[in-house]
């Protein structure tokens, strides 16, 4: 990764009439980075991508790719990128090959057919069948070939593995990873599945209600996560005694039954809890990090004011 910024948005806002698409979205993606844009449906991922591609026009703010304005220099930008839309539309009456030839033919430079054949072989796609005869997964493979065949500096992938089986999904990420390592291209990958993004992304941006609420590496996200401690006490009395000693407002506790309890603890509070546990009468204990998916979901449960407080705190810390 280099310090050169490939995608830059500043206070980017898009309203569809009165309804919000994205609002004050600020983002920077560096050269060679795989950036995951995460958020549920309607969060603003696709709107962000469509503004970047000049398919829709911003209401206010600034958006640049390769330090060029996404609207004024859109053709020059699009010559250097490939895009896989979330809802892939292909020419149904044409064969997969004809679709690919036509769409890749719109690039100013020639894209070798050999590359298309190679990718089709890897993904097991029959190029000469009509698109309308293909399954959803096979149609998606055409989109993937269209994105991976040209050697471009930036790949924008909107829900790229939708409809693909796990094996092909794994193969796709494998090829993406290899290609990215060889070419040093930048990748903007949008998804609502953190489990997919975490395998390849260097950083993720979590988008909520049209605004980026967090940008962090996967490790940072994991670090920010609460630990879950499951404890089996000797008796109900020891559970009660332990429970009374806990700093209530900082720890979320769930009493499962008379002797079993579960606690969600921040990293800062973890040593204190372990100390208390060492003094308690316990039979067994288990400390786990929650799945990244749970962390992601947590961002969608906190209120907007909490979000701003959280961001401020993170800024002070950094």
């Amino acid at each position, binding site marked *: 990764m280099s310090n050169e910024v490939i995608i830059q948005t500043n206070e980017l806002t898009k309203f569809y009439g009165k309804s919000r698409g994205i609002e004050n979205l600020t983002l920077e993606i560096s050269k060679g980075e795989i950036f995951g844009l995460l958020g549920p449906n309607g969060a603003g991922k696709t709107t962000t991508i469509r503004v970047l591609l000049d*398919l829709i*026009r911003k209401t206010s703010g600034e958006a640049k790719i390769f330090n060029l304005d996404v609207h004024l220099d859109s053709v020059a930008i699009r010559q250097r990128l490939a895009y896989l839309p979330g809802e892939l539309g292909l020419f149904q009456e044409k064969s997969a090959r004809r679709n690919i030839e*036509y769409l890749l033919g719109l690039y100013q430079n020639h894209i070798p057919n050999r590359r298309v054949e190679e990718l089709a072989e890897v993904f097991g796609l029959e190029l000469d069948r009509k698109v309308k005869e293909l399954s959803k997964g096979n149609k998606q493979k055409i989109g993937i070939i269209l994105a991976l065949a040209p050697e471009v500096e930036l790949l924008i992938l909107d829900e790229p593995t939708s409809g693909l089986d796990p094996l092909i999904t794994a193969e796709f990420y494998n090829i993406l990873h290899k290609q990215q390592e060889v070419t040093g291209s930048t990748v903007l990958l949008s998804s609502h599945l953190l489990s997919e993004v975490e395998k390849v992304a260097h950083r993720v941006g979590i988008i909520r209600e049209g605004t980026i609420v967090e940008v962090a590496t996967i490790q940072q996200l994991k670090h920010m996560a609460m630990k879950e401690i499951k404890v089996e006490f000797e008796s109900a009395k020891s559970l009660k005694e332990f429970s009374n000693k806990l700093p209530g407002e900082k720890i979320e506790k769930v009493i499962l039954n008379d002797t079993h309890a579960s606690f969600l603890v921040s990293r800062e509070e973890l040593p204190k809890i372990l100390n208390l546990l060492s003094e308690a009468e316990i039979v067994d204990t288990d400390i786990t990090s929650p799945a990244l998916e749970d962390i992601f979901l947590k961002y969608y449960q906190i209120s907007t004011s909490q979000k701003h407080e959280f961001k401020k705190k993170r800024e002070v810390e950094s």
Partner: protein
Amino acid sequence: MRQFTISVKEYFLAKKYILLILGGIIGLLSYFIIYMVEDMNLDAVQDIIEAWPPEMVEFFGDTEIFSNPYGFWSLEILAFMWLYAGIYIVYMASGLLSQEIEEKTIDLTLSKPITRYNFLGSKITFLYIFITATMGICFLITMGGMSFSSIFKEEGLFFDRLWLTYIIVVLFLGVLAMFAKLFSTIFLATRKSMALGVVVLFLMFFLGEFYIYMDEAVQGVKYISVFFYFNPAEYLVHSDFPLFIRDLIVLGSVNAGLIIASLLIFKRKDIPI
């Protein structure tokens, strides 16, 4: 320019059979009319027409047009070209852009290094190529038919007039297509654009052809109809060159205006998801 050519070629390949079928069918219909004229007593037709009310005669042109083989052919074929070819062309023009939006193929195409002018311009160019080629097939069949027809040979083979008429027919159908294209760029929806395109077509037909039945004070509305500037029988029968030039300028300008408006509107449009 390369992208432009690729796009035009792509649309052309997709519609090549329809083009041949449409041009061929209208051409054969035209051939049938030529064949029919061969056995007709046009002087007797003129006698019948002279018995009609003057407004009705004016509606068709004049009595001389009926008694002339070119005039009769023009009334049967060219005067109804809006019906034979126009409605299909309006349908095609309304869907050429909006179908790409409805089927979401536009996202992939416009994410490639192609300008919006280029994208829409290639569709418009294709429409004109389609109209030119369809009418070309029809006129070639017609000219072939006239070359073998004794009545047309007797009248004289005015192929120069026919070519001038051909230009006007292309421009006339072009206007109908460009109205639908304009609606398509405004609404980005096939059904709405198609409906409006057909409504405008019939409205203009009504205003351009039936104005003589209206009150004299409002007869001026005929000038807003493209049908008023489409007078193939006059060019063919009377060789009315000044009228041809007027119609050429008006239809050409309306085409140009509609193309520019479509391009400018599309340039500013958000592509809906």
